[in-house]
């Protein structure tokens, strides 16, 4: 009916289709809800996409591609940008030769995250332009613009997605593939790319000058739209909040900012001059509001209460009406829990029954904090379990210190647990320490992605398999035990008791494949077999 150019796609899928059409040479990232499907889709439709051990490495690989005149896409969730912040800030100084597009998915409301930080703060702090698509069509279209911007100004560009943009589906008219990018090649430019202080000082001045030029470009970029309406009130909005606002107040004049940083100051000033009063509707921190006020533009923000959680049509209506009662608390629905038969269950039962103080980490197993286990005492960020556990061991009185255990999953361990083990051997607490690596052979929470210790790539192809026990031993841990007797609860308890009683650093790897991963692997191998059968020549 519409041909193949119109598709029903999520924001993540739409962005991946645009990346393929732009001839992106490499997509890389680390899985994280709600960003994960971007790279999975890119690989599925024929692009080159791969998982990195963590977001920092992904950003650096992508930066290398862009230094080599290639086009790179790097994806992560909002907290992933904390990990990748170091290369990002310096990439803003060095600039790039090709294109570097950083797709970051924020999670206002924390559907599956530990905080609701706003990526736009990073754009301002690092000095990197930022685009805010509101739906799948814009996630697709803005990617083309981000590549254009990145190449024209030699800058990394952030596309800020949010849960409702990444995971909502809408109709997307797919763009035609543009002219293919220049073939990658290396041009030496040491004063730009090597940030010794003597070269970095002028680089910072170049960055500030570049941002002024990009702000000017943004005035006529076409990314910021004025939707007609009455002039008693004006609304400035971005991302999905702009759609909520248009629905809540269809007759009100609205400036929809597609590129909120650097702010198109003249465009905003002109808009605000044309209305009696102006309210900024944005999801997350009051970033646009503060930028406007910094430039002396008189706007009103949203109430402090609306900084928390996702916005919606109802919330925007309330903000515009000036009603400020706190929204009703969300009705409680059934909380998530560890799957029946999950191999982590046995571990958390033992930790609970032995009265351990558990420094936990990020993954499915964080659910060990909920009843019936309640066997987790801290969980802050990826990889923190080992450092936090060591800190507790250093400072607690001996009767508490000897009960401290760090619990970390396999993918999280590869992401940022390795340096924790180095610390454990470099500065061992006097009473030793116990690190439990829950190796379920997948990145389960984000939807069963492979990682370096599964021995398979993002596309499921075999590759070098990182040995968790091997790497722990290589770091210097002499006492490494691999426990695979999943059904033997008593023997696990005995092992844990023994390790807790000895005053030396040790690692226990509890290895048992996630049931969901096992099922999917079997389904895939069945499907592959059927494919082979159907593909037999009929001759």
């Amino acid at each position: 009916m519409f041909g193949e150019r119109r598709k029903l796609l999520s924001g993540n899928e739409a962005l991946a289709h645009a990346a393929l059409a732009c001839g992106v040479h490499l997509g890389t990232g680390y899985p994280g809800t709600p960003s994960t499907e971007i790279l999975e889709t890119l690989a599925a439709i024929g692009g080159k996409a791969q998982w990195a051990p963590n977001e920092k490495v992904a950003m650096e690989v992508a930066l290398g591609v862009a230094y080599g005149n290639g086009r790179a896409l790097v994806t992560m969730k909002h907290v992933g940008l904390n990990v990748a912040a170091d290369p990002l800030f310096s990439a803003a100084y060095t600039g790039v030769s090709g294109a570097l597009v950083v797709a970051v998915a924020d999670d206002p409301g924390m559907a599956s995250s530990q905080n609701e930080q706003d990526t736009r703060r990073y754009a301002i702090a690092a000095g990197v332009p930022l685009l805010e698509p509101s739906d799948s069509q814009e996630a697709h279209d803005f990617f083309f613009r981000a590549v254009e911007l990145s190449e024209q100004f030699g800058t990394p560009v952030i596309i800020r997605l949010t849960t409702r943009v990444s995971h909502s589906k809408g109709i997307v008219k797919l763009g035609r593939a543009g002219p293919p990018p220049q073939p990658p090649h290396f041009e030496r430019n040491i004063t730009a790319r090597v940030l010794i202080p003597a070269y970095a000082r002028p680089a910072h001045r170049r960055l500030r000058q570049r941002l002024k030029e990009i702000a000017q470009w943004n005035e006529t970029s076409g990314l910021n739209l004025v939707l007609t309406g009455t002039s008693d009130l004006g609304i400035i909005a971005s991302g999905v909040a702009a759609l909520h606002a248009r629905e809540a107040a269809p007759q009100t004049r609205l400036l929809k900012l597609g590129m909120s940083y650097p702010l198109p100051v003249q465009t905003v000033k002109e808009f605000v001059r044309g209305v009696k009063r102006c309210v900024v509707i944005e999801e997350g921190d009051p970033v646009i509001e503060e930028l406007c006020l910094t430039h002396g533009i008189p706007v009103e923000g949203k109430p402090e209460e609306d900084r928390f959680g996702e916005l919606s049509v109802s919330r925007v209506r309330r903000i515009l009406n000036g009603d400020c009662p706190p929204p009703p608390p969300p009705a409680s629905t059934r909380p998530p829990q560890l799957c029946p038969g999950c191999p982590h269950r046995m571990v958390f039962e033992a930790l609970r029954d032995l009265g351990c103080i558990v420094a936990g980490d990020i993954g499915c197993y964080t659910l060990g904090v909920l009843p019936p286990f309640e066997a987790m005492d801290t969980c802050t960020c990826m990889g923190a379990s080992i450092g936090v556990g060591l800190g507790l061991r250093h400072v607690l009185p001996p009767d508490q210190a000897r009960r401290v255990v760090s619990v970390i999953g396999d993918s999280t361990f590869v992401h940022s647990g390795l340096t924790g083990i180095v610390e454990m051997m470099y500065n061992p607490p006097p009473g030793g320490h116990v690190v439990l690596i829950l190796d379920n052979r997948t990145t389960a929470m984000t939807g069963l992605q492979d990682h370096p210790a599964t021995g398979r790539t993002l596309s499921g192809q075999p590759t070098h398999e990182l040995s968790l026990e091997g790497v722990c031993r290589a770091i210097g841990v002499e006492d490494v035990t691999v426990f695979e007797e999943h059904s033997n609860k008593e023997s696990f308890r005995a092992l844990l008791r023994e390790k807790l009683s000895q005053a030396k650093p040790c690692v226990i790897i509890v290895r048992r494949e996630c049931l969901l991963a096992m099922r999917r692997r079997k389904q895939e191998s069945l499907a592959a077999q059927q494919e082979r059968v159907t593909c037999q020549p009929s001759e």
Partner: protein
Amino acid sequence: MSTERVTNIVVAGVGGQGVLRATDVIAETAFLAGYDVKKTEVHGMSQRGGGVVSDVRFGPRVLSPMVPDGEADFLLVLEPTQLEPNRHRLKPDGVIIGCDRINVASLTHPKTLNVALLGVLSQYLDLSCELWRDALRRCFPPHLYSVNEEAFELGRQADGKACRRE
């Protein structure tokens, strides 16, 4: 494109029940019918057996992907415990479609409950059976089509309105 207004549907259940697949099928059907359509869902921890809610909206033009509270025309409830937490989504004269609308015991496979309730929903919507079947074909692998088509028909017939014509 007969109607000027947007149709709002909310589907609620728990992880593993096919809530998201159900809204995929509705969205696909509306897409095939030529409507503007948006659907939204929340991933992540909800996949570990927690409550899952997904919204679909279609009409001449859809703005926000989320159905505003109190504006859902239909609330599909795949698991009875999920009714109360989501009742506020429904408009005053909105329709609740729960498992009591069909004979669950007559489903060939219990996992097709989601599609059976779509069959019930289809009685209220101006979308042809051909489009629903096309959408089912697009949303399920070939070997799962017939069992789901059967479940759809069961729901469709729940109040005596069949669409099978061979």
